[in-house]
């Protein structure tokens, strides 16, 4: 680490970093604490998808010291939406899917659940045109964008977390692209990548057209996750619900039949849509779904937090309320 190594050491870069929603990974673990009980939620990436076809085995327990989750064998609850009485300092989660396993911990002190939202602004810059100096923080601060759900291949977008409490900070992840954070709640994102070596751009890569998802995790003064789907290139026909795009969706509350869609970042699309009446909206509940802990109109993020799997949703007819 010191003198010689700083001067002379070098290493090959890794293919992935923490922004990449790939493989089998616990992307976020949040919780709300109330009345001596904790209500945790997890955001899972399964085989590179923000959904799973079959349930991920989620087991919950308690540990006292950091890192002890690695040896945890006694669990108090299972499933994606447990309610646990607080028994120790740290909540531990073991997630298994086939032969894959991931473990996580969360310190349970002053956890306040918040419901942040993500805003997307398309920027005029493109990875084909800019250099390292343009990416300096103060230069990017002057970039201005407008609210659009898509960017050109190689284009930049800005994502901002709305509804975050003071003192919080956000961490961003995505299914594609490259991040250039701007401040505690804002990141610039490129639909492509730049490889910079010694202040020179040595490679420019442009993303192919298609959907992507940005995930924001709130830390420190609040605990919450927001997801937002966008497009590189022209958006498909459909609508957004809770930040997630449903191909075939309408722009007002509607009934639709869920179908598996491997091309969608949420894993599903809607077919046979028809507008819903105010009465439908008032009466419908998801009780008929084989999901865990869900309520209200259909939310595609139920797949992200594993409360529903794609297999049980496929073919179900649900009420969907699109984002305004």
């Amino acid at each position, binding site marked *: 680490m010191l003198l010689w190594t700083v001067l002379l050491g070098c290493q090959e870069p890794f293919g*992935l970093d923490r922004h990449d929603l790939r493989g089998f990974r616990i992307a976020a673990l949040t919780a709300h604490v109330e009345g001596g009980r904790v209500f945790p939620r997890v955001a899972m990436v399964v085989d590179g998808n923000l959904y799973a076809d079959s349930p991920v085995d989620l087991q919950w327990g308690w540990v006292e010291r950091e890192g002890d989750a690695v040896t945890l064998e006694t669990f108090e609850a299972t499933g994606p939406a447990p309610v646990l009485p607080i028994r120790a300092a740290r909540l531990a989660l073991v997630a298994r899917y086939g032969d894959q396993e991931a473990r996580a911990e969360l310190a349970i002190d002053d956890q306040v659940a918040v419901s942040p939202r993500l805003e997307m602004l398309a920027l005029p810059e493109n990875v084909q045109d800019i250099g390292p100096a343009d990416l300096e923080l103060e230069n990017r601060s002057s970039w201005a964008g407008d609210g659009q759900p898509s960017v050109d291949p190689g284009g930049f977008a800005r994502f901002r977390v709305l509804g975050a409490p003071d003192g919080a900070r956000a961490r961003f992840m995505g299914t594609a692209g490259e991040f250039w954070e701007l401040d505690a709640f804002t990141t610039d994102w490129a639909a492509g990548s730049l490889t910079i070596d010694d202040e020179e751009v040595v490679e420019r890569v442009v993303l192919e057209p298609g959907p992507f998802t940005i995930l924001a995790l709130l830390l420190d003064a609040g605990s919450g996750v927001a997801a937002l789907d966008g497009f590189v290139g022209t958006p498909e026909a459909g609508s957004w619900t809770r930040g997630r795009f449903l191909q075939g969706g309408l722009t007002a509350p509607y009934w639709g039949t869920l179908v598996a869609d491997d091309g969608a970042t949420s894993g599903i699309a809607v077919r046979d849509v028809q507008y819903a009446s105010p009465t439908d909206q008032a009466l419908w509940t998801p009780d008929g779904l084989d999901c865990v802990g869900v309520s209200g109109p259909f939310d595609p993020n139920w797949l992200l937090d594993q409360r529903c799997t794609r297999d049980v949703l496929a073919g179900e007819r649900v009420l969907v309320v699109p984002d305004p």
Partner: protein
Amino acid sequence: MTLLALIANVWAAEVEVIVREHGSGAPLDAVVTVAGREVTTGPDGRLVLDLDASTTVSIAAPGYITTVAEITLPTDRAKVWLRAAPPPMEIVVEGRRTTADVSRQAVDAEVAFETPGNREDAVRLVQSLPGVAVQREYSPSAGTLSIRGSSPHDSRYFLDGIEVPYLYHFNQYASVFPASQLQQLELFASTFGPAWGDSVGAIVNAESRRDAPETVHGSAFLNFVVVGGQVRAPLGKGWWASGGVRRSYQDLYGSATDQYTLWPVFSDTSLQIEHGDDRRGTGLFLWTASDRYERAAGELDLLDPWETETVPRLDFRRGFQVGGIRHHWRTADDWGQAVAAVVGDHLDGDLTGNGSQHTRTLGLQTRVDAHHRFSPDLGWDLGMALRTETTRLRVEDPGPARLLVATETAALARGEPVDGELGRVSGGLYGTLHATLGPVRLMPGARLGFDTLNDAATFEPRVSAVTSLGDTTTLRVGGGRYTQRPPTEHLFPGTGDPDFPTTTSWQGVVGLDQTIAQRLTLHVEGYRKDVRDVLQIQVDRPAHVEDRGTATGLELTWRYRIREILFLHGWVGVSRSHIGSAPGPGDQPVNMGLVTSWDPSSRWNLAARYRMGSGLPFTPVEGSVYEATRDTWIPIPAAVNSARMPLYQKLDLRAEYTVRFARWSLSANVELWYVPKKSAQLYPAYDFDYTDTTWVRGPTIFPLAGVRARW
């Protein structure tokens, strides 16, 4: 030969002849022969000749080339510089003086300066001695001394009997005292005599120069990291002074980076004022060392742009000051030294927004070593060491980023706020009898130690014996008990455990010296160490104690040396060491080295060094836990030392050219270090969630250059 041609004159005159040493300018006692008549210079190298015509004189002095000079009148003064005669072809049979330390190796200045790969640093040469694990250059452990299987904290480092808090700047680049100030460096790899205690590893003891300078000498040097100089000068009436200073300078011309906002800078100074010479003297000394840098707590290459602006920064400062008084004496039958020094040591780490660690130690170390020989067959060594110190440890507001600075501020990384002070008094009395019984020199002895942070006094019996097996063969054996208390920082409640037990060790060694054709010395030595209650200090987990550790090894060493012309050293070692069921941190099954230096002429020096060591063990990361509170991953280490670095090899080549002027000389050197590509791995690096691994690599070829002026 030197020929002086002076302007002719027909008148008679008194001419002052001044004879001085070429290079240093020191006055010489010389004999000047004029027309068959011999005249001797005074102590100031001067004489006056009464000449009535131009003439030729011959000037001779022991150890110098006789010079003929022509003095041409008119003139009133003639200066003559005599060059030192070439040294005789002195073959040095590096026999071992008979001490109670069976495993003793010594390095002198010639070897230190002419061995490539050390940057003229004698202490770094310790890493090229048998029994010392070969470390990877440029790596964070480059300065780690793991000797005969011991952990680095098992060994102790002394300068004139006073323990210095640390040996290398940044544990890497250079030792904290320059070679030019040292007379000798000794390594006691294991099984040392009763004079040394509170160590189950090895002892490194440096001795500062005690020979009084007759005139002002000095040197200045510059290489690509450090600039420095030293001077030795007589002060009159038996007093003399010596001092040196070194400083890294890359910080001075804007080398700061986003990662290192204050580029690593180190310096050290030494000052010695002494009355007397190497036979008897009393002096005051002062040594200081200082290391500082400020770095981002985290690898900026792995962080987002905004995070790089907000990541905590560690302001790290480390240093010590040692000031004291020393008296030494040496006669045919008695020799020894008494020394007392105040030692201040500090370590400060301020991690913005994530806490700080401040460690201050202030102590008084005293030591007396006395040796007396009643006859060639009987004598004793007696001595004592007493150390009084107080350590203040303050750890405040440790935040989550503390884990990123565990290598520098270990107490902060443990995350427990501490504000405490521990006083500690420790020491020991020792005695060794030297008795010759027939062909055997027997040296039984013992050390009685105490430590106020210990539960009981320690008794450490030790014995060694030497016997000649013919004119050219010597057998040495030794063994004994050794103990060591944990470092004070690990005895603090909160960051340590006051109940950590004392580590104890039984050690034994057998060695055989063989001289071949009065030129080549061979030495083979086998050792065994059995350690109980082994303290394990690791950066990634709290210190803990393992029940047992062992180290076993065999070393073959050979030396051939013609002083000032050639030396050739080599060694091969095989060893195994374990702590608990795992390999020890210095477990290097095979290592070897070869060092040679040759002066083909008075101007050139050519040298080479080759080192090879099997890969040292390390603890890899086998998985991680996602820490959702901070959105980071906690590495999960695999079994301790369950993986090994690849085989390491390094070849260092050096050439130096010296130009000598009348009063000074200038040397320029170039070095080329070569590490094969397969050996260039420095340490493993892991991706964000520890699921992917790669190696941080160092360069395979690295050139260096430096200049040194001596006068």
